[in-house]
């Protein structure tokens, strides 16, 4: 049963990774990163249950806290870029200029 959870986590992680590489909207890229973090969390919780110790759940908890902090900073950076450049697409060359 744990292998099934592991495979689900890996599938979700891969979908997040593919989305991260395919999408060009900074917001959607950010959501794909969140999906990858969630997949890692699922693996933590599944192995915590497999081994019968709570440390995995603790790790997932810390991942959530770090993800919250990361989202706050990332989204404010996206809002700043949008204010200055009027776009959230990471492919516009205007975003790349200093």
């Amino acid at each position, binding site marked *: 049963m744990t292998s099934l959870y*592991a495979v689900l986590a890996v599938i979700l*992680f891969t979908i997040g990774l*593919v989305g991260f590489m395919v999408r060009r909207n900074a917001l959607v890229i950010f959501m794909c990163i969140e*999906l990858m973090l969630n997949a890692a969390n699922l693996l933590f*919780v599944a192995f915590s*249950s497999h*081994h019968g110790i709570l440390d995995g*759940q603790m790790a997932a908890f810390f991942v959530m*806290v770090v993800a*919250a902090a990361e989202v706050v900073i990332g989204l404010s950076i996206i809002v700043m870029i949008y204010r200055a450049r009027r776009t959230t697409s990471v492919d516009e060359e205007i975003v790349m200029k200093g």
Partner: protein
Amino acid sequence: MILEIAITGVEITFWVCAVLAILGAIGLVTFKKSVHCALSLALVMISLAVIYASLGAPYLFAVQIIVYTGAILMLFLFVIMLVGVSAQDSLGEVVKGHRLAVGLAGVGVLALLVFAVLQGVTGTPIGIDGNANNIQGLAGLLFSRYVIAFEATAALLITAAVAAMVLAHPEQLKKKPGQTERAAARLEAFIRLGTHPGPKPNSGVFARHNSIATPALLPDGTVAPSSVSEVLASRVALPSVDELMAAHDDVLWALEGGDTYEIETDLGQEKTND
């Protein structure tokens, strides 16, 4: 041969939630509008929360829904509202062969990770009883073995909050004008354009009403147009100058020694005439 199939609640939960989570993840990657992406991410997160509950992690189940689905996704939605809901992404390729390369990389990573992770599944599963002191156990770990990480997390959250405020605050390009500067600017406008430098007349001055729809009368008996809001002037029928002047004259007459009783009867007659 009779296959004995014993399906437990945990397995049913897993299969339902796994299908929902994968569908949501595919939606996240394929939807064009970022709002739809955010909502499919919410589907993934809620299904994961249910899986956590079935894996003996009731605390993480609650935190997943409150923190991830509640706080983080709402933050995403706020920013989507801020930068424009209706904007659609073009999903076409910019670099030739990009899609194919990403697909190959995805398959490769999937295979690699599946083999790597399945190596880690050893021994028989023990399982965690989610009902037995889950929160007490987590709290015991948090404040003993992981207390340093906990403190670091506190510092991280404070830093993130301060950083968000610093980043989100727009830069003040000019110094805010004080009283001296504003007075100088008014006089400057008076010299250049002839704008009256003093305060504007209030609505209702020299009139019988103090309603904001009653324009002020200037000393020469004309209406001061700046005393009534433009919106009101365009929507409401303002009282005419004659009407206002009549009231003004009545008051003047009373002040010069006229009989107040007669004025009141005059008023009464006006009302009946109306």
